[in-house]
C-alpha cells in the first residue's frame, strides 16, 4: 500500500536525501582513494564556480539560448504539424510514416550532417535541440488532439461546429495535458540537443567546455559545466511546470 507522507516532511526528506549523498561524496570518496582528477569533491567544484565564474558564465548563455530556441522551435513545429495531421487525415497518411522513418535515425548520427549543412554558428545547435524535442511532442500531441470522447465530438456536431471550431474549442484544450507531459520531458532533452551540437563544432557553450575540459584533465571545470547543464534543465522544467499549473488550473479543484 502507498504510504502518504505529509507535505513539509516530504520536502525535508528530499533535501535530506540529496544532502546525504553530497556529504558522502565529499568525505567518503577521498577515503576510498578516488583521485580528484577523476572525481573532484563538491567543495572543489564549488570553488571552480567562484574562481572561474566569468568563464562559466560566458559559456552558459550560448547553451541557454540554443536550448530555449530549440525547445520552442521543435515543440512549435510539432504542435503545428499535429494540428494539420488531425485536421487532414490524408496529409497524415502521406507524411507520418516518413517522419516515423526519420525518427529512427539516432540524433547523434544526424548531428554531424546538420552541422555540415548549417555551419558552425548557433543555428545547427538550435536545430539539433529542436529535432530531439520534435518527435515525442508530435506523437503526444496527435494523441491529445484525438482524445475527445465520442459524446464530445457528437455535441460539437449537433451544434454544427466547423472543423476549425472543433479543433480550437475542443481538441486543443483537450490535448493540453498530453502536450505538457511531453514538454516536461523536452525541457531536459532540449539541453541534451544543445550540448551535443556544441560537441561537434563549437568553441563556445557548455558542450564545448565539457569536451575541452575532458581532453585537458580539468575535471573541476568539467564537473562545473555538467552542474550548469543540469541546472539549466531544472530551470526549464520548473518554467514548464508553472505554465502547466496556470493552463490546467481547472483540474486542481
Amino acid at each position, binding site marked *: 500500500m502507498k504510504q502518504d507522507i505529509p507535505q513539509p516532511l516530504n520536502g525535508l526528506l528530499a533535501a535530506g536525501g540529496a544532502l546525504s549523498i553530497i556529504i558522502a561524496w565529499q568525505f567518503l570518496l577521498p577515503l576510498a582513494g578516488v583521485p580528484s582528477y577523476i572525481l573532484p569533491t563538491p567543495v572543489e567544484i564549488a570553488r571552480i564556480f567562484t574562481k572561474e565564474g566569468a568563464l562559466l558564465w560566458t559559456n552558459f548563455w550560448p547553451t541557454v539560448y540554443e536550448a530555449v530556441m530549440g525547445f520552442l522551435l521543435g515543440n512549435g513545429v510539432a504542435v503545428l504539424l499535429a494540428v494539420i495531421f488531425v485536421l487532414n487525415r490524408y496529409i497524415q497518411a502521406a507524411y507520418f510514416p516518413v517522419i516515423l522513418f526519420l525518427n529512427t535515425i539516432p540524433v547523434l548520427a544526424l548531428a554531424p550532417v546538420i552541422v555540415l549543412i548549417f555551419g558552425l554558428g548557433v543555428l545547427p545547435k538550435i536545430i539539433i535541440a529542436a529535432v530531439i524535442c520534435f518527435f515525442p511532442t508530435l506523437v503526444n500531441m496527435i494523441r491529445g488532439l484525438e482524445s475527445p470522447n465520442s*459524446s464530445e465530438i457528437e455535441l460539437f456536431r449537433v451544434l454544427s461546429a*466547423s472543423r476549425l471550431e472543433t479543433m480550437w474549442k475542443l481538441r486543443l484544450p483537450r490535448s493540453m495535458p498530453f502536450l505538457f507531459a511531453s514538454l516536461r520531458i523536452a525541457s531536459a532533452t532540449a539541453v541534451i540537443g544543445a550540448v551535443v551540437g556544441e560537441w561537434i563544432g563549437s568553441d563556445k557553450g557548455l558542450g564545448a567546455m565539457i569536451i575541452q575540459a575532458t581532453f585537458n584533465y580539468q575535471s573541476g571545470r568539467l564537473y562545473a559545466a555538467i552542474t550548469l547543464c543540469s541546472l539549466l534543465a531544472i530551470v526549464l522544467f520548473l518554467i514548464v511546470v508553472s505554465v502547466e499549473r496556470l493552463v490546467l488550473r481547472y483540474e486542481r479543484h
Partner: protein
Amino acid sequence: MTQDRHSLAIAARGLTLGYRSPAGDAVAVLNDFDLDVARGEFLTIIGPSGCGKSTFLRAVADLLQPLKGQLGVLDGSPAEARQRRDVSFVFQDATLLPWRTALQNVMLPDDVGRRAPRQDAPPAMELLELMGLRGLENRYPAQLSGGQRQRVAIARALLSRPRILLMDEPFGALDEITRDRLNDELLRLWRKTETTILFVTHSIMEAAYLGQRVMVLAANPGRIHALHDLRGLKATETGLRREDPQLIAEMADLRRELERC
C-alpha cells in the same frame, strides 16, 4: 395515427437505421418502422440494450444517416433542423468541457456554429437559475456533483430554445433521489416550454412516469414492440403521482412487455 402533417415533430416512414461495416455492408439496427411524434409530445423509449434506442435519437439529431426510408424532422430533413438549432441533445454523461465554468459551458452553443445567438434566447444566467444552480455559475465541472453537472448540460441544451430535446439516458448515472427530483423538474420544464422531448431510459419507472407515450423496442432484430399511450391517464394538469395505482399497473404492463421482447 392520422395527424395533420404540420403538427408533427418527427415523422418516420419505412425507416431502417444502422451503420455500414468497414466492408461497406449495411448492418441494420432498427428495421423498417413508422413513427409519428406530435409537436409538444413527451415520448419515452425503453428496451433491452442493442435494440437501437440511441440509434433512433442519433438519426433525429443528424448524427447518423438512415439506411433506408424517410425521416422528417419539423417538416424538413434532420440536417436542416440541426442547422436551425431546432434540436438539442443531452448525453448520458453530462459532456461538460472541464476547462469551462458552468456558465461558460451553458454558453457553448453561442460560441460555435457560426451563427448569431437567437434574439429570443433566454440568457444563460437565467437558465442556470431555472435549473437551480444560482451561485454555482463560476464553478468548474470538477467542482460540481453528478446531478449538478447534468443540470448544467440541460441548461446548455435549452440555450438555443430547441423545439426538440433529445435525451439519451440523461439521468442513468445518478442516484435515485436525484433522479426523481430531476424527473419532476424536467416535467415542469416541459409543461412550460411545450418542447417535444424524446427520452431514452433503462428505467421502467422513468419511462412510465415521464412519457405521454412509451415506446417499447425489441432487440434482434430491433423493432417497435409496442407503443403505450398514457395520455388518457395523464389528462390532468399535474399528471400522475409516482404512487398512483394506475401508474403502478402501467409499470407492471411494461415489465411484462419487456420480458417478452
